[in-house]
């Protein structure tokens, strides 16, 4: 579904990603793990079209997308939930969600998706008239994921959903992601919480210093000696 071929990318003169290649197949939940500054977020930002490539190719459903602007990539079915969340803080929860479905012009489909989202995150329904900027960190994160789902994406890129959350909220966010996969949405997840991520993802890639150093089914990665030493501390 998504394929990165020899991606080189970065900010101005600072190159972050070196020859990164990987693929995500339909229906998978793939984890991208690695230490701080390895380029995990940069990878997602590059796929979303927020950073221009130096060289390489990104394919989505066999089509080249790396020459397209962000809004078209989003309309093609890739939803990026950024680390900063990028919520519309001066608008209500409901308005944020409706804007998530900006590319869907059919009002009825919009409202159906909204009802489904409220079923999935009852907390958001309770707060639908509250301004997004006045919500707690966990609620904001949920709102960002929910907004990303409103466009009925085929692929979701989720950046550090557990960052700064207390453990029981982290659990909620993870179970939301697992539910997403059960509904047939493909997910590419960047996470710091390596242990938990590797226990529910299908496959994983390890990114270090801008290069893919390891790949395989999550179980195998979890059993790997290097990963156990460096990330799991066992």
């Amino acid at each position: 579904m998504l394929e990165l071929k020899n991606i080189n990318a970065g900010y101005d003169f600072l190159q972050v990603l070196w020859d990164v290649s990987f693929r995500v197949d339909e229906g998978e939940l793939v984890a991208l793990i690695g230490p701080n500054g390895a380029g995990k977020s940069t990878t997602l930002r590059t796929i979303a079209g927020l950073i221009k490539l130096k060289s390489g190719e990104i394919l989505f459903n066999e089509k080249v997308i790396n020459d397209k602007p962000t809004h078209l990539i989003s309309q093609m079915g890739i939803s990026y939930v950024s680390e900063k969340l990028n919520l519309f803080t001066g608008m209500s929860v409901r308005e944020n969600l409706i804007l998530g479905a900006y590319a869907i012009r059919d009002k009825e489909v919009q409202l159906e998706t909204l009802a489904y989202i409220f079923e999935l995150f009852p907390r958001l329904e309770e707060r639908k008239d509250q301004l997004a900027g006045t919500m707690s960190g966990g609620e904001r994160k949920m709102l960002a994921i929910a907004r990303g789902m409103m466009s009925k994406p085929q692929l979701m890129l989720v950046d550090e959903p557990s960052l700064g959350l207390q453990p029981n909220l982290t659990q909620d966010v993870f179970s939301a992601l697992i539910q997403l996969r059960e509904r047939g949405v493909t997910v590419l997840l960047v996470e710091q919480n390596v242990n938990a991520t590797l226990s529910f993802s299908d496959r994983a890639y390890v990114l270090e210093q801008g290069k893919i150093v390891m790949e395989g089914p999550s179980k195998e990665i979890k059993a790997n000696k290097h990963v156990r030493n460096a990330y799991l501390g066992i």
Partner: protein
Amino acid sequence: MAKNSSARPLMSRIKDNLPIVVISIFSLILFVAIYIEGGNAQIFNTIITGGMWALLAVGLALVFGVMNIPHFAHGESFMIGAYVAYFTFTPMQEYLYTNPNKFLSAIAPLGAILTAGVAGAILGIIIEQLIFAPLRRRTKKDWIMNAFLLTVGISFVLSNGANLVLGPNFRGISRYWDVKAVEIGGAYMSVDRLIAFAISMVTIGALWFFLRRTRVGRAIRAVSQDETGAQLVGINLNFIQTLTFSLATAMASISGASLLFLFQAYPTVGGTPLYYAWYVVMMAGLGNVVGAIIGGFIVALLQTATQLFVAVSWTTVLPTVVMILVLLIAPSGIFGSEVKGVQEQ
């Protein structure tokens, strides 16, 4: 004890919104003073002037809020609107002079004002696509400063261009509607003024509805709050920015056209309206659309009060002094500004 707990939130609420409270009380005092000294006529005068400034300032606030452009060519949109209305209205007027027709005489001015609005919208698209879109693609660095300098340049080019093509002559009309002034509460108001006020209110109302209730309007607000977030949900940034600029230019053109009988059309006519619109947005809070509407009326109140109690020649001085005082106490304006770009850059 109970009395204390109910009094405390009120006091702290006043403290949080001190600039708003002070300016409301100040405005109320001015309003009463104007009423006592000048009666209904001056009150109506204030409200009508306030409507004009509000319409102009809303455009400025929108452009600054969504695109982070401190727009100093807004007065030239006003000028273009005045010219377009003049050149469409006078031929119609001549025709109606020889072929009197009551219905057409009532409609013709509205047609001229509408034409000016459309011309303004097109001008806005051209300026945005020709100047700001290329700059945006090239670099976002020092955006506010670059954009500011560009708008000043556009202002020079347009007003001197008008001078070159049309000459420095004043072109104007004495009135749009050839009917008697209307009496309201003992004060006589010309129909032109009343309709100019109605047009500004209807335009602001339409904009309000557009921003709050429509899909694209919501997208404009989304861009003003988070550009990246807006792109991520599939909003075309380029389209929204061109649209916003076009809307603002159209609004300035409409106000230039509907006030043709008051200002006339000449190359530098945009100066005064531009400065008043800037007083309004600086005082109310840059990029704050609601603040701009209320601010328009506050500035009008200050103007009328100066004319009544000080002297006509001080009309621009006192609003400026008040603006400076406001900025000294509340640097982001009375109603504050939530523009993302200013803090980030």
